[in-house]
């Protein structure tokens, strides 16, 4: 059983109103421009924010059901969350960070080896590179044997080469883990590369035409592009995101 959610959450300027589902072993990419409410959606899934209304279930457990007054705090959800910025604990070594919430130390050690940072196990987070820190953050999140994995723009602060390598690692991990993975990005190429399913989000709502429009602008041949009524497309986009 995967993760399924229907969330309604007012933000300043718009209201997040979204339905999503992701099966085990699959990766759902939420893609959209900055300020679209993607991170807020992940925060609601993690229990760091409470939705105004809606329900969230994961692996057969109900985490949120506002109608029935059910709310499971983040501590009890057992999920992995890799934040956009580096959130490793600075007073701990990489090995201690990975084992911070691990079921057992061996699991954390295996993950460090699997993600090729075992040689950095004795280092503090401020002594290693951004890519290595994100690998360590993934180890920390997975060592808990989570029911689901949430990734909030995990590669956005990394250089192109490191980003590409980590994407490959994640793609390989996805099939091994067999848990639902929800990934947030503003990079459509990344979403298309990683995602088994892609959910475009604009101003807190699903906006498929926005995605289509972007792809068309980006990928159509110049000859084709000239024939499209972009103004009409723009109107459609405005209607959809209104």
């Amino acid at each position, binding site marked *: 059983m995967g993760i399924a959610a229907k969330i309604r959450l007012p933000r300043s300027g718009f209201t997040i109103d979204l339905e999503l589902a992701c099966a085990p072993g699959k990766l759902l990419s939420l893609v959209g421009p900055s300020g679209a409410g993607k991170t807020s959606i992940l925060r609601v899934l993690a229990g760091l924010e409470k939705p105004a209304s809606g329900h969230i279930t994961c692996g057969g457990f109900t985490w949120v059901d506002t109608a029935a007054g059910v709310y499971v705090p983040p*501590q009890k959800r057992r999920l992995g969350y890799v*934040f956009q910025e580096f*959130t490793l604990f600075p007073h701990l070594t990489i090995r201690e960070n990975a084992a911070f919430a691990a079921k057992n130390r061996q699991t954390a050690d295996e993950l460090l080896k699997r993600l090729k940072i075992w040689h950095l196990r004795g280092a503090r987070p401020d002594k290693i590179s951004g890519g290595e820190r994100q690998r360590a953050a993934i180890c920390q999140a997975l060592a808990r044997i989570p029911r689901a994995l949430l990734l909030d723009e995990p590669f956005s602060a990394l250089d192109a080469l490191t980003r590409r390598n980590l994407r490959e690692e994640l793609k390989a991990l996805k099939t091994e883990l067999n848990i639902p993975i929800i990934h947030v990005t503003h990079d459509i190429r990344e979403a298309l590369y990683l995602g088994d399913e892609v959910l475009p989000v604009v101003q807190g709502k699903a906006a498929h035409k926005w995605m289509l429009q972007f792809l068309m602008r980006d990928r159509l041949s110049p000859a084709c592009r000239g024939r499209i009524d972009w103004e009409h497309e723009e109107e459609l986009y405005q209607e959809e995101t209104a």
Partner: protein
Amino acid sequence: MIDLVPLYLSAKLALVTTAILLMIGAALAYPLAMSRFAGKSLCEAFINLPLVLPPTVLGFFLLMLMGPRAVLGRAWQALFGSGLLFTFTALVMASIIYSLPFVVQPMKTAFTRIDKRLIENAYVLGLSPLKTFFRVILPNSLGGVAAGAILVFLHTLGEFGVILMVGGSMPGETKVASIAIYEAVEALRYQDAWILSALLIPTSYIFLLVSYRVFRSE
């Protein structure tokens, strides 16, 4: 032969006050740093009151509160069968109130600097707020905690007005170094005053030096 018991009492008072204030300070500084609540400014102003009040004023209020006919004095008498005023316990209580801002402020500053995402990460990783405090917040605020402890220790070592009011000068009980120095000067025993003062200077200086180092590293 000079009596060194006042020095021992001063050190004991400073240590006990510091140990208790570290716990009280953390409990007060944490909500002040992390939460918004009605009356927060009122609380902060009340905690910082000893910074601006003359020690004799604070001592006078405590004297009135701890006296045999006052609320606290009577409650103490009923509970333990003895008076509170002019005891070492009264000195500890007075020192805790007098030095409270010196531990709350550095701790609050240190807690405020903690990246909130570290706390959220700890929650997502399954830690309760209490465990998060001990496993994430406290280890990353050690500079502020150490600075607060040193300041409280030094401040208590140098107390005079409040202590004189609630402790008087009971030899072996409440006659701490600052009181002993004052009495020695009053009795024209300058040699005793010199020795006690000279012994206090290096202790205070070393602790202050450590405190500056901690502040600078913070």
